[in-house]
């Protein structure tokens, strides 16, 4: 797991929710019944992630792609799965 990306996700979720970073784990749920984010925060996480990937990895996440959106829906479940999604996106774009 990319530590830089994990730190970004944890920091972003913490800033949006007010939950201390130390209490946010890979299993913290982002969507679903026990989610720590509401719909507004979820949108902000996605937009911030888009900016982060572009700034740090010159990588773009194409939200208009059906496959990307489908992947995002399933991989937005937790902090851990979102980190994996962003890592794979960064690596794919970096690898050309």
């Amino acid at each position, binding site marked *: 797991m990319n530590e830089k990306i994990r730190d970004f996700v944890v920091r972003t979720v913490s800033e949006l929710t007010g939950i201390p970073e130390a209490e946010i784990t890979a299993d913290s749920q982002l969507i679903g019944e026990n989610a720590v984010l509401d719909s*507004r925060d979820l949108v902000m996480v996605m*937009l911030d992630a888009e900016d982060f990937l572009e700034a740090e990895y010159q990588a773009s996440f194409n*939200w208009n792609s059906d496959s990307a959106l489908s992947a995002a829906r399933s991989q937005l479940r937790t902090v851990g799965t979102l980190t994996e999604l962003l890592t794979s996106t960064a690596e794919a774009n970096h690898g050309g």
Partner: protein
Amino acid sequence: MAAKNQTLVVTGASRGLGRHVCLRAAGEGYDVIGLARAVKPEIDGVRMISCDVGDPVQVAAAFREVRKAGNFYGLINAAGIASMNLILTTPPATMDRIIRVNLLGTMYCSQQGGRLLARKRLGRIVNFSTLAHSIALKGEAVYAASKGGVESFSRTFAREMGDHNVTVNCISPGPIDTDLIAKVPRSNIAMIVGHQIIQRQAVPEDVWNAVSLLLSPAASMVTGDVIHLGGA
């Protein structure tokens, strides 16, 4: 008065209401970016970007340029087409084109513009409907349906964007003398105006006045609404 250094994006900028809004907004001090398939003729003080709003790839590219320009504040979705025809004799390709430009074009631009405005947690989106939708105007079924879709989309999108301090409203004018209704007989126009509460055909400046009102800080609590010019 418009705040300086605020960028407005106006679709359908090359002619009709879009062009008028561009001219007036630039005159009020907004930095205006016009989107249109044909970027000529140029408009003083307006940066034109070639874009078919019915093409999501072109829309995404255009809004990348908008983001670079900075200070994005408002989106005016003025692009629209019509083709007066009875539904029984309207070619499917025409139906597709009207829905694509009027409804999907509004959605594509709102999606891209909305993402930028959500980041700033401030902004305005103004869409366009039509009196033809309110009065179920015979011969305009596809056009009216596309604009009815825009009204429905606007009300729901307003709820989503309310989370981000962005207002979304619709302006619904009656017939205004632009290319859009150039082929509509005057008797028909008089009949349509007859449905309005104010029995006067609106002019482009009436539209700008409504747009200007919705852009103003005073309209920060106005969202999810449809303004019927002249009343309907």
